């Protein structure tokens, strides 16, 4: 019973889906159910400067993934240690209505882990020596989630735009792509249903012009060569995502 909010009943459950009588037309000629091509990325729409009070902000939408991200800083950091280099603090949160199953208000272990991953993905990309004694606070809220790993990759791309919108100096934009392995093929940008079927998740964040991988995260059984192939595919995806990011930044400049 959270005393600081309006509380509903103790336990509430999602109604179970009635197995729809007529079979879904999954004539699986293509590898993927929603017959997207193997290396197809959902069309990306990014709009910077959507939060007035934030130094920089960005809204990211790719069909059923909607993410909003705000960057505050560089501002005096309350955290204890004094350092001649700036620090990054990140908070990643799914909105209660974003996933199929309602998520709670307090951040669970996965959201805390994603916050840490985002922090590690951006540490090599931001010129922290220009912001001594200050902290850059990044807040991400996922409004609609269609594939948790795809959301993580989308969040990283969206944060790069928000950081640039905040005027924070960066060595390079950080683009990120997610992939999964369906029937032996590496498929890009998996949505929620594809992710439930296979257990393998792959996410890579990349600085396209400095050609540096800033973070890689993978679970699920894969051959070594297959994971190397996945890295290659994700890097090409990141390069094409970079063009979209450049286009968006230059237009709104």
């Amino acid at each position: 019973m959270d005393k600081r909010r309006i509380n509903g009943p103790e336990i509430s459950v999602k109604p179970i889906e009635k197995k729809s009588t007529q079979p879904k037309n999954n004539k699986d000629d293509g590898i993927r159910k929603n017959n997207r091509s193997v290396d197809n990325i959902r069309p990306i729409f990014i709009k910077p400067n959507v939060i007035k009070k934030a130094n920089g902000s960005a809204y990211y939408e790719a069909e059923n993934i909607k993410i909003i991200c705000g960057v505050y800083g560089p501002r005096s950091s309350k955290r204890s240690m004094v350092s001649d280099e700036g620090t990054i603090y990140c908070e990643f949160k799914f909105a209660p209505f974003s996933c199929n199953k309602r998520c709670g208000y307090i951040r669970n272990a996965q959201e805390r882990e994603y916050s840490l991953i985002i922090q590690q993905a951006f540490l090599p990309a931001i010129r922290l020596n220009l912001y001594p004694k200050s902290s850059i606070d990044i807040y991400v809220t996922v409004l609609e989630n269609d594939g948790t790993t795809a959301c993580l990759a989308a969040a990283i791309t969206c944060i790069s735009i928000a950081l640039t919108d905040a005027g924070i100096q960066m060595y390079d934009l950080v683009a990120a792509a997610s992939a999964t392995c369906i029937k032996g093929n590496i498929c890009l940008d998996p949505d929620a249903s594809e992710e439930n079927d296979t257990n393998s998740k792959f996410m890579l964040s990349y600085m396209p012009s400095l050609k540096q991988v800033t973070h890689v995260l993978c679970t699920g059984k894969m051959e070594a060569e297959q994971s190397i192939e996945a890295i290659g595919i994700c890097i090409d995806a990141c390069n094409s995502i970079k063009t979209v990011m450049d286009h968006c930044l230059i237009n709104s400049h």
Partner: protein
Amino acid sequence: MSATTVTPGKKLGSIQEYEVGPGTYMRNNYIYSSTVGDIYIIKDVNKKLPCISVVKDKEQSAIPEVDSIVTGKIIRVNPKMATLAIMVVGNKPCKDDFQGIIRVQDVRSTEKDKVQIYRSFRPGDIVRARVISLGDRHSYYLTTAENELGVIFAQSISGETMIPISWQQMICPKTKVMEYRKCAKPN
């Protein structure tokens, strides 16, 4: 769309061609842009290479650096120091206030030890100061030991804006009451 707008990470040239300017950085002898904006190449007569810089139009919040002039409001005064909320760095207002301290020995350059802090600053005064160091965890260290630095706006007890009549006195136009402040020389 201006001539060439670049995004962070764009290779601009090698260090033989240009000098590194603001908004750019050098990595294994190539110059890259580090922000989104227009490229400006400024020919500098005494330097042999032109200096390249990338300027972002939307001014973002500046943070105080050493020797930058800041303006802020006094929030707390005690015999050892006056605490100031830095609201403007140079002439760019910053979105969140930073905290600065003017130690009693940095208030003025003459007779440093005979300074009485409540004859120099009062909470609510607007003060222009210079950053002398990044200071400790909470605040920057500032000084007003120059003529153009000090109180630029203060209200008397009756709430009127006071006018400086000397570098250490201000007068309230309505009640003609005189109060002591370390005033800045009006430009």
